[in-house]
């Protein structure tokens, strides 16, 4: 198949890339744009390591075609960084709580949790409970931490966010 030219907006920057029509968003972000924080895990939408935000909503990078992201805002974890690559407060919580060991699952965990906390705030609900966080993260696999510290980190961030 011939490659096609795609105009993608990723982490607030415009990119033009040549890709096969069958290329997934994961392929293009990782291989063409060099975003190492979007990762191939299972290719089936189960593990969450390729999570990106498409117009603010978590989606599977491995199950979305790059061409489908044209005209959308794509956000990877790197897009959360502040000036001078300052860590996002949720990333700070992950560090403080030891919620990131090998780090492979961390971008997916961070983006999914952030969406959950933001959604609760926008809907005027209480911050998500530990059980609600567990449910939201069921599709993000971690083979290191045993999840406890990840839940601790997200709860700490949710408390912080609720105070603001």
């Amino acid at each position, binding site marked *: *198949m011939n490659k096609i030219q795609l105009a993608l907006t990723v982490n607030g920057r415009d990119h033009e890339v040549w890709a*096969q*029509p*069958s290329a*997934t968003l994961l*392929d293009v972000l990782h291989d063409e744009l060099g975003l190492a924080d979007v990762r191939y895990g299972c*290719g*089936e*939408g*189960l593990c*969450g390591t390729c*999570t990106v935000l*498409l117009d603010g*909503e*978590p*989606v*599977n990078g*491995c*199950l*979305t*075609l790059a*061409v*489908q992201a044209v005209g959308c805002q794509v956000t990877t974890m790197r897009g959360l960084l502040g000036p001078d690559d300052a860590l996002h407060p949720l990333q700070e919580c992950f560090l403080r709580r030891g919620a990131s060991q090998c780090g492979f699952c961390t971008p997916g965990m961070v983006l*999914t949790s952030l*969406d*959950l906390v933001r959604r609760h705030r926008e809907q005027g609900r209480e911050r998500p409970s530990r059980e609600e966080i567990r*449910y*939201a993260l*069921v*599709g*993000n696999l971690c083979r290191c931490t045993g999840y406890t510290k990840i839940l601790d980190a997200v709860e700490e961030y949710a408390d912080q966010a609720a105070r603001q």
Partner: protein
Amino acid sequence: MVAPAFDYVAAGGYDEAVRLLASGGDDAKILAGGQSLMPMLNLRLARPELLIDINPADKRPPSVAGGVLRLPALTRHRVLLEHDLVRKHCPLFADAVRHVGNVRVRNRGTIGGSLAHADPTSEIGSCALALGASVVARGPGGERVIPAEELFAGYWTTALDVAEVITDVLIPVARPRQGWSFHEMVRRTSDFAIVAVAAVVELDESATAVVSARVALAGVADRVTLADAGLIGAGLVGGVGDEDVDAAAGRIAGRLEPPDDVHASAAYRRRLVRVLTARALREAVARAAAAGAGA
């Protein structure tokens, strides 16, 4: 694994999608949410030459008219969970979709895509059966309405013709004195159901007898299936006591020949059907009684 290369075209409307599908034949596939099709491509279980993306074809929200809830085929699972019209008129869907995939799958996955995929463990398929839903299919010769009972033809197979596309799902809105329930057994949350049961029950005006009861099962055959109405009704009409419910659930489970595979034995699946069906019928009857009392 990586999907074999294919070509891609975005369809601006359903008619264009039908035209492309008619000329592409077996080598073309419709891409809706992509949460089942894309894994099949990545695992090379399917290798179409052309994907026809219908996502640009339709932006309609759910709507209600004439006692029917109309869900456009591209309605995402998240919308089923959160939309006021779905929660009010079809609470069964809003509840059952919690069990579908994970947050990313629910953000992209669609009701039309799920029904067309026809997975035999489908939560959405079994709910469609229990609710007496039907789909609107558009093909080269125009539109036709297919009841859910006639849609599922076997493992990952539907009654849709090769050039037909589902455009809408039609669901009778919940009536007074109608109750519903959904139960499933999984090893881990978000797994495919080992067995799932969707029940919809309607009581008479005195709220003591069952007028109609529909029980749909997933994970027990090569497709989602509706339990024979006679098996439920015979015992329940005139009484909704625990013994009647248990007897009905036992009759339904006794008739099944569920698959025996690595996930569960046939005997375990049959037992799950008996336990979960009884639980679902009891809950549906209780909800129907409460709904009738509130009306």
